[in-house]
C-alpha cells in the first residue's frame, strides 16, 4: 500500500510533473470531446493533415517571437482551406488532396527549421515536451483549450446534427458551411494544444483514439463524450506516470495507454466488442443471411 502511495505521490513533489499532469489533463478534455466528432464525421485523416500542416507555422512563430499558437492556427486553417479549394477545383479525390497538402506543409516546416536559426528543438515539436513546458506555453494552451471547449459545448447539438444529417441541418436554416469550417478551426486549435503534450506526429491519436474507444462502449452521444474524455484523461495521467518511472518517451507512453484502452474495449465492450459478437455469432451462423 505504502509503495503504491509513494509511487503515486513522489512524482508530484516535482513541479514539472504537476504542470505536465495539469496541462495534459486539460488538453485531454479538449481532444477527447473533439475526437467524438472526428470519429463520427470520419475526419481522422483530416486531423492528421492539420496537425502536420501546423509545423511551418510553429517554426515561423518561434522565429518571429510570436505566440506559437498564432502561427499554428494560421497554417492549420490555411491547410484546410487549401484542401477544400483544390478538391473543389480539380477532380482529384479528397484523401489524395489531404495527403498531398499536409506532406507539403510538413516538408516546408522541416526545411524551415533546418535553415532558420532559433532555439527550437525539432524533437520537441515532433514528439512533444510536456515535461519541460514553459509558463507562456501553458498560458497559450489554457486559453486555446478554454476557447475550444466553449465553442464545442455551446454548439454541440448543431455540430452533432451537422455530422448526422447536413441536408436536414441546412433545410432548417443552420449555416452548415460555417459549422464545417468552425469544426475544422477547432480541430486546428486542438491539434495545437495537443502537440504540446504528444507532439505533431502522435497528436492525431489524441484526436481519434478516445472517440473511437468510447464509440465501442455506447450508443448514446452524451455518454460517448464523457467516456471519451475519461479515457483521454486516464491515458494522459497514466502515460505520464509510466514515462516518469520507466524513464521512457512521454508521448509514446500516453498514446500507448490510449491504444491499450482501445484494444481492451475492442475485446471486451459489452455490445460492440469482439467477445460479445462472438457470443452472438453461433446463432447468427445458423441462419446465414
Amino acid at each position, binding site marked *: 500500500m505504502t509503495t503504491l502511495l509513494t509511487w503515486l505521490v513522489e512524482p508530484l513533489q516535482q513541479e514539472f510533473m504537476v504542470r505536465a499532469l495539469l496541462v495534459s489533463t486539460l488538453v485531454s478534455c479538449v481532444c477527447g470531446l473533439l475526437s467524438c466528432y472526428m470519429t463520427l464525421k470520419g475526419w481522422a485523416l483530416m486531423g492528421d493533415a492539420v496537425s502536420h500542416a501546423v509545423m511551418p507555422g510553429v517554426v515561423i512563430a518561434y522565429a518571429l517571437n510570436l505566440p506559437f499558437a498564432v502561427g499554428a492556427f494560421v497554417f492549420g486553417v490555411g491547410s484546410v482551406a487549401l484542401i477544400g479549394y483544390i478538391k473543389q477545383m480539380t477532380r482529384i479525390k479528397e484523401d489524395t488532396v489531404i495527403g498531398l497538402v499536409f506532406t507539403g506543409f510538413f516538408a516546408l516546416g522541416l526545411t524551415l527549421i533546418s535553415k532558420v536559426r532559433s532555439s527550437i528543438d525539432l524533437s520537441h515539436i515532433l514528439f512533444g515536451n510536456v515535461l519541460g513546458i514553459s509558463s507562456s506555453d501553458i498560458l497559450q494552451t489554457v486559453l486555446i483549450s478554454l476557447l475550444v471547449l466553449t465553442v464545442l459545448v455551446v454548439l454541440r447539438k448543431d455540430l452533432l446534427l451537422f455530422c448526422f444529417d447536413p*441536408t436536414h441541418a441546412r433545410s432548417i436554416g443552420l449555416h452548415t458551411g460555417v459549422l464545417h469550417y468552425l469544426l475544422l478551426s477547432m480541430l486546428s486549435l486542438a491539434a495545437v494544444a495537443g502537440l504540446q503534450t504528444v507532439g505533431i506526429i502522435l497528436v492525431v491519436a489524441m484526436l481519434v483514439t478516445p472517440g473511437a474507444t468510447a*464509440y465501442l462502449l455506447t*450508443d448514446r452521444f452524451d455518454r460517448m463524450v464523457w467516456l471519451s474524455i475519461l479515457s483521454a484523461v486516464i491515458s494522459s495521467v497514466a502515460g505520464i506516470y509510466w514515462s516518469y518511472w520507466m524513464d521512457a518517451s512521454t508521448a509514446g507512453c500516453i498514446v500507448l495507454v490510449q491504444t491499450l484502452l482501445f484494444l481492451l474495449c475492442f475485446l471486451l465492450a459489452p455490445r460492440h466488442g469482439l467477445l460479445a459478437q462472438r457470443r452472438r455469432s453461433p446463432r447468427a451462423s445458423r441462419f446465414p443471411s
Partner: protein
Amino acid sequence: MPSGQPLLDGNERISVLHLCVDYHGVVAVHDASLHLDAGSICALVGMNGAGKSTLFKALMGFVRPSAGSIAINGLPLKEARRARAVAYVPQTESVDWNFPVNVHEVVMMGRYGAMNLLRIPRPVDREAVKEALDRVDLWPLRHRQIGALSGGQRKRAFLARALAQGASVMLLDEPFNGVDIRTEKLMIELFEQFRREGRTLMISTHDLSHVTSFCDQVVLINKTVLAYGETASVFTSENLALTFGGLRLEATPAAATDPDPQAP
C-alpha cells in the same frame, strides 16, 4: 399542438416561376414553372438526371437559380426557410445508421430551428416530438438507437421529424424505395392524413404505379416541367413518352413498369 391542427394559412403552397438552374454552365433545370395548392400530394416523376433532385434543392434554397423565382406559402425562400416551412425527408440510405442517437433525439432535431442557441428543448418542443412519434406509432420505441429500427420504422422516424418541424411543405425523396407492402400502406395512410391537414407533399418517384393510386397531382420533369396538374389529365401516354425520352409506356397502373434501367 404545432403539427396536429390544420394549416389554413393561405392556399398556394409552392409557386415556381420560370426557374432555371445550372451547374457551371451545364443546364440542370430550364424554364420550369409549377404551382401547388395546400392539401395536395404531388408526384415528381422523371428519369435519373432529369432534374428531380435539383428541383428539390432549389425548393430548399440549396442552389441559386440562374433565373426565375420560387415562393413557398407566398413567402420568398429565405423567409420560408426561417419559418421552417419546408421539410426534406431523405432517402434512408443516405444516413449513417450506426450514429449514436436514439429515435427521440432524431425527431427532436426537427425542432432545432425553433429553439435557442443551446437547443435546449422547451415543453412545447417535447410535446411536438411526442405527438409526432405517436402519429407514426414510434413513441414506445423512442429510446432505441436508430440502427435498431426496421426499415419501415426508419422511414417513419424521418416522417416524424418532418412533422415535429411543423412543416407545411414536405419533400420526400423516393420514400418507397426498399419498403414492404405493409409499410407502404401505412405510409400512404399517413400521407393522406397530412393532405387532409392542408400540407403539401412532393414525392419524387420513378414507380409509376404510385402516381395513379394516391397522388392527386403530377409533375413530369425532364430538364424542364413537361406537364403538371391533375393526375388524370397529365398522365397520358404522350406525356410519359416525353418524360422518358421516347420510351413508350402505357398510362394504366396495371401496366406501369419501372422505366429507369438503373434503378434497383
